[in-house]
């Protein structure tokens, strides 16, 4: 009868039970929805970061820390070959490519812009920007003095596909160099910074411009994002004796905006959940305190029939536990429906620093469900502690006298 009495009590006070369940469910549903929304936003930023940086990058610490005075961080072809041999042993390895990035000036007519020339392996399939070309064509392996330009930079320099520009730069030897380039295509990318600054050229041409056969980084694609940290650790272990030293950085290390936004999302969710939990706590505390107060005589009867204080506490606490579990479960169901409904709306927005609109959505995963459920459960059970203790502490004779 231990489980029966609390259930019957809840059924007897249906209105109060429904109000309590609604409050708990509402709090849980809102928590779930907010968490699902933030998780989805976090995933979108993660995907953009991986698209921009790859899963991993391997380079000299001088490059990552921006401490080099010249180009001493460049990796020679034989070091790249050794690195590739190491990468092929990595279980989650899918593909790799190399890059060489350097500053320069791009001029068209009487307009000049500071740009980052990024020399890539054309048609490599990994960070070759082929999928982002919105006009013209992607770079081909046999291209030389060709370039892909971002939409924003094309607007700034009034460029169209087939136009010629001149790039000027300083070689690794410190000499001045300049060369004409033909715009093979225009790309669109989620990051406005990339679109307005990065000019993509074939690796062969980039090395020619810079007068080197080296590259500055190896970019690695893994079979899944979740494998990144473990793969980074294994590769780092394999590079422990490399001289000069090499460093592995993950997409997360390379994307400060992801780290900042992720921390901000955690803070936002924590604050919202705390506020909702406190609200649920106090409302349920008041509801249960009043409910138990109304049943003082019932408590007296139970005690007079031989129930110990612990048993009275258990009875009333389990009544709250039923409320907590049922309310949280209803809230989870409501939250999932709310999230799915929101996804169906397909609302678009333009995240800061991006040029492509993103669809606002939610992602419901095991943690998105578990966390709000547990938070509501704990908040409700904590709110039940005081009234249940009060009920257990009542003197039988006083409880029986209550009219």
């Amino acid at each position: 009868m231990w489980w029966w009495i609390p259930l019957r009590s809840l059924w007897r006070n249906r209105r109060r039970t429904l109000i309590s369940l609604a409050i708990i469910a509402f709090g849980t549903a809102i928590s779930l929805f907010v968490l699902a929304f933030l998780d989805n936003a976090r995933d979108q930023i993660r995907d953009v970061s991986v698209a921009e940086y790859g899963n991993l990058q391997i380079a000299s610490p001088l490059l990552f820390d921006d401490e080099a005075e010249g180009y001493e961080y460049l990796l020679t072809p034989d070091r790249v070959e050794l690195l590739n041999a190491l990468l092929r042993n990595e279980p989650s390895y899918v593909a790799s490519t190399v890059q060489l990035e350097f500053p320069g000036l791009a001029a068209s007519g009487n307009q000049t812009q500071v740009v980052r020339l990024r020399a890539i392996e054309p048609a490599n399939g990994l960070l070759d920007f082929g999928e982002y070309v919105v006009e013209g064509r992607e770079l081909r392996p046999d291209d030389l003095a060709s370039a892909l330009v971002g939409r924003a930079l094309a607007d700034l320099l009034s460029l169209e596909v087939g136009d010629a520009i001149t790039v000027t730069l300083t070689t690794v030897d410190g000499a001045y160099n300049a060369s004409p380039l033909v715009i093979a295509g225009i790309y669109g990318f989620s990051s406005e910074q990339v679109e307005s600054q990065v000019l993509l050229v074939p690796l062969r041409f980039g090395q020619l411009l810079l007068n080197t056969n080296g590259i500055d980084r190896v970019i690695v694609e893994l079979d899944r994002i979740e494998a990144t940290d473990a793969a980074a650790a294994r590769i780092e272990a394999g590079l422990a004796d490399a001289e000069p030293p090499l460093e592995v950085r993950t997409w997360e290390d390379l994307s400060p905006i992801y780290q900042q936004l992720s921390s901000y999302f955690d803070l936002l969710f924590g604050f919202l959940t705390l506020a909702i939990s406190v609200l649920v706590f106090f409302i349920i505390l008041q509801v249960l305190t009043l409910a138990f107060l109304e049943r003082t005589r019932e408590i007296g009867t139970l005690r007079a029939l031989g129930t110990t204080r612990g048993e009275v506490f258990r009875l009333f606490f389990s009544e709250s536990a039923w409320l907590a579990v049922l309310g949280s479960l209803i809230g989870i169901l409501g939250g999932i429906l709310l999230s799915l409904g929101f996804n169906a709306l397909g609302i678009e927005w333009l995240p800061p620093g991006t040029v492509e609109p993103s669809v606002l959505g939610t992602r419901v995963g095991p943690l998105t469900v578990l966390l709000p459920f547990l938070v509501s459960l704990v908040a409700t059970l904590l709110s039940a502690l005081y009234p249940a203790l009060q009920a257990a502490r009542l003197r039988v004779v006083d409880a029986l006298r209550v009219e």
Partner: protein
Amino acid sequence: MLKAQKSFRTHIGFFGRRNTGKSSLINMLTGIDRPTSGEIWVGPHAVHQMSEDEIASWRGRNVGVVFQFFQLLPMLTCAQNVMLPMDFANRYGSTREMRERALHLLDQVGIAGHADKLPSAVSGGQRQRVAIARALITRPKIVLADEPTANLDSETGGSVMELMRGLNEEHCVTFLIVTHDPAVSDYGERHIRIHDGSLREES
């Protein structure tokens, strides 16, 4: 000192005017209330020395209580109310066995047909019969009843008293009944008057 016969088949009536301490006496005998001084012994048990939880367990197993206002739990059926003390005492077999015993007792008090009704669906007299069945369910040696007929009309009250006297003989249980109603006190084998704080046995 109040002594019941060893056979535990006594029917003792306490009577006296209102506010003379009759209910306080019952409450202290059951451990529901504590004496500010003195000792309470029920058989070999020193009730005044027990802790709250010891008293509760002892009361659940050894004492049946019948209240003036019946004190049935409104969300449980009559049968479930009767089963309640057995459930708390946790030593009376399976739920099925407990229900069988509850139905047997409800049959003895004449309301087996109302076993699955809620207390709100039966009359005051029937509720008091449920309360009597509940008091007897754990086979206590002593049943204390505090003004058991005060909320019943005289005819129903009379039938409840008859019932208790019959059960007193049938179950070998001592009934201590507190009342201010002289008509009720007539049902007792022993009559004890409470007056000015003292007990006086009357013939």
